[in-house]
């Protein structure tokens, strides 16, 4: 659930203001990259041990209840999975294969984790990415407008609906939409990404199936973005340089677009990059409710197994995405902050 992940208090925007006036040197780039790598290494280690604590009989994933595999076979599987080995040997072999880009074989799908993740990543990027882009546009517009026209009816309506939508879990929205649209034939409420029997061109079919899940995700993002945008717009609104700009006789709209907006965009941009990082972890609940074949649903299925190598791989990909996007936002910061650029 992306939204909840971002909704952690204090995450968005927080540190942005302090960093503003720092220009960036190659040394800093190196330092930041190294820090990010350090975090990634920490993630690798912690993830390994995190999954050792899950109880279970993984051999049963290869021979589930009711299928006849004798005790000897179960013992064999345990040996193959390296389950009898002491943890440091398991850890060592995990590290060794990781270095070679091998995340092991999925227990649930009987093929390399890397190829499983590769199969599921695009639907998620498509769904969450589209939702994110749509939401960024709409949210920015709504937020900037209601911040600028603070106290108007537009502001009141927009910000109160944003707060309300921010309080709706996206899967609940999905559920309500499905109940409401069931039987209407308007959109495919049965979910999925394509209809294998469809006569429509593939792209349209996908877009068609994407409408509802994308809507659910986008609404939550829009709420979040517009709230952030509104508050940073409020911050800028009464700044001195704007008074100067107005005094020069510039039109109100121009003042907003040319002067206030670029500055107010900073926290928004940070949040946007953070959300991109969380895009790959997808929307477990929305993907499940809408049978969307993405990483979120894959994670949910893997948790049910539990398919430990797959989970390990997924967690690594998820955290790496967030770390990389954070780093990216950090490095990009000087280029988008007009004050830093000027100095």
């Amino acid at each position, binding site marked *: 659930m992306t939204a909840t992940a971002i909704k952690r208090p204090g995450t968005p925007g927080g540190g942005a203001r302090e960093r503003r006036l720092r220009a960036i040197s190659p040394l800093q780039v190196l330092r930041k990259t190294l820090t990010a790598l350090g975090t990634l290494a920490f993630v690798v280690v912690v993830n390994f041990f995190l999954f050792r604590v899950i109880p*279970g*009989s993984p051999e*049963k*994933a*290869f*021979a*589930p*209840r*009711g299928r*006849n*595999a004798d*005790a000897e*076979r179960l*013992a*064999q599987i345990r040996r193959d999975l390296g*389950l*009898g*080995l002491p943890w440091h040997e398991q850890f060592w072999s995990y590290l060794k294969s990781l270095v070679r880009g091998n995340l092991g*074989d999925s227990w649930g*799908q*009987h*093929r390399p984790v890397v190829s*499983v993740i590769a199969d599921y990543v695009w639907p998620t990027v498509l769904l969450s990415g*589209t939702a994110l882009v*749509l939401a960024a546009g709409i949210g920015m517009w709504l937020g900037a407008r209601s911040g600028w026209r603070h106290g*108007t009816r537009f502001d009141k309506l927009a910000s109160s609906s944003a707060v309300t939508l921010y309080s709706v879990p996206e899967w609940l929205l999905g559920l309500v*939409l*499905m109940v*409401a*649209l069931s*039987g*209407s*034939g*308007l959109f495919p409420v*049965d*979910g*999925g990404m*394509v209809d*294998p*029997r*469809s*006569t*429509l061109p*593939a*792209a*349209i079919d996908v*877009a*068609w199936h994407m409408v509802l899940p*994308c*809507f659910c995700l986008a609404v939550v993002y829009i709420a979040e973005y517009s709230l952030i945008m509104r508050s940073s717009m409020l911050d800028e609104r009464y700044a001195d340089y704007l008074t100067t700009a107005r005094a020069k006789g510039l*039109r*109100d*709209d121009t003042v907003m677009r040319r002067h206030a907006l670029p500055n107010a965009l900073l926290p928004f941009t940070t949040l946007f990059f953070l959300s991109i990082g969380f895009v790959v972890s997808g929307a477990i609940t929305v993907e499940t409710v*809408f*049978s969307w*074949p993405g990483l979120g*649903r*894959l994670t949910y*299925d893997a948790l*049910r197994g539990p398919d430990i190598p797959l989970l390990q791989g997924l967690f690594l990909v998820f955290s790496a995405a967030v770390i990389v996007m954070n780093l990216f936002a950090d490095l990009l910061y000087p280029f988008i902050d007009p004050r830093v650029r000027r100095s």
Partner: protein
Amino acid sequence: MSRTPVTDGAGLTDQSASRRESRVPSLRRRLAAAAALLVAALTALAIPAPAAAEDATPSAPTKVTFVLGIKQDIDSLNPYVGVVASAYEAYQLMYDYLINSSDKDFSPVPGLAERWETSTDGKTWTYHIRKGVKWSDGKDLTAKDVAYSFQRSIDGETENGQYGNYVSLITKVSATDDYTVVIETSAPSPSMLRLLVPILPEHTWKDIDAKEVSTFTNDTNPVGSGPFKLVEAKANQFYRFEANKGYWGGAPKIDELVIRVYADDEGLGQALRNGSVDMIQDVSAAVWESLRNVPGITTSDSKYPGFNELAYNLGAQTVENKPIGNGHPALKDKRVRLAIDTAIDRKTLVDKVLRNHGTAATGVIPPLYPNWHWTPGDAARTFDLAKANQMLEDAGYKKSADGIRVGPDGKKLEFRLFGREESEFSKDNVAYIADWLSQIGMKATVSIMSEDKLTAVIGQGEYDMFEWGWVVEPDPDFQLSVFTCDQRSYVDAGEIAAGWSDSFYCDASYDALYQQQKTLLDPAQRTAVIKQAQQKLYDDAVYSMLYYYNNFEAYRSDKFTGFTPQPSDGGSLVFQYGTYTYLNLAPVSKTTDTGSSNTLWLVLGIGAGVVVLAGIVGGVFLMRRRSTADERE
């Protein structure tokens, strides 16, 4: 409640449907407007030019495609590694077996082997392979392929893990000529009539070595000889199979079979309703009931080879008789188990939990297999709380001050009762059972956990009772083996690893019965022993059998006909031991273009989207004009 729950549900569905119509429009309009906007935006974003052009010419003669909706994705198309039921369904479609199970009653019927003979000592089997069978790449299927497939299942570690139980008695496999296979076994075994080992083409599989086979996906143009051929596989989305029009068992009447994966029951139900699938199976009772009165849909409540039980910890031990776990000692006392068994009202469970879609259970082999099924008849234990209380009194379990009975050893009859997260039925069952136990002076503390966790807990012997079930194969051997001493947990590298036993039952006379049925070739003799074994389990109350449940299937009878149950008397229509339904399916009349309604809506949607978009842009423009006017004032 005067009416039965089922009628209630169905009746209300209709009412609520009409009620829904009245409330939805305004909401729908708003949603449609918002969504249409999105569609318009998305389509603009998402359509690359070539994709739009690609579909310009729809294929002239309409292909007949049958779509089956499933919940559990096929875990692998490689028949040596996949373990879930849907994977086995795919293997049946793609490959052939030596001997099939009849649609009538599961009795052995010719598959790739036209006929077969047994030597007088029952140890040598000769199978005569059908002539003229071709692989999907045009090569001939011969006895060599058969011998290869068996040899591979014997030699390969991964392969043996999958089919080892079918080949464990085989000492030698040889193709004596192109159409004869001779198999020698170490002992006579009835399992030689049910060799569910798929026959694979040697010429493509010989390139898949022992190392590669465990992760080989087999999803691009696999060569097979079955009634269908895999042409497209999209994990967690759909699998497209093309009919093998030259199939030796007769050409399928449909051109294409698609197995489509959904995340849950609601998705399946909606898909059948709106026609994106033609059949769904293993769907929840709630969704199934909601489909009962939908025009064009036939619901079928078929017998299923599964049962649910309340299992006890009979004193967990490893195969070396070393005690493990922490089961409640009172459950080793048969009298306590019999009392609990007497306090379970199976009729209520069937009525309320299953809503009548099942029957009270007795023997561990379900009545779906009438040849093997055993039932106590008049000797069946019946629900009687007073009697259960009396049984416990007589056994010396007296009530203490707080109403909970105390055993002769001074230990209170307080039990842990585990149910499964994955199953609503399980949660309901344990709720009822806990309630009944409280009425015979016991206390059950209910915990609900995932099946995986429960598996681990059972293997360690750290439980008192739990609710779970089994699905039984046509050959009862495996199900009976679950209760043998050998299936108890064992120690592997210092850790306790689980076998299949989930009761830790270990009884020499039962083990003897089990071993005996394994070698009897005469069906009548074997049946007698199998029934004896079931009676032993019943008398010892190893499990409290709860019910045999039905399987919920539903299909578009307005579009397809030819659904064939196995067994003929109310069996399942798909996920059979065979592909009878898929072979017999035929379109009802001329298939209508299923895409047209979607296309219509799409056109309308995009139209609406454009209108709304225009409206919004206009509105924004106006608002902006107005507000700038405000500012100027």
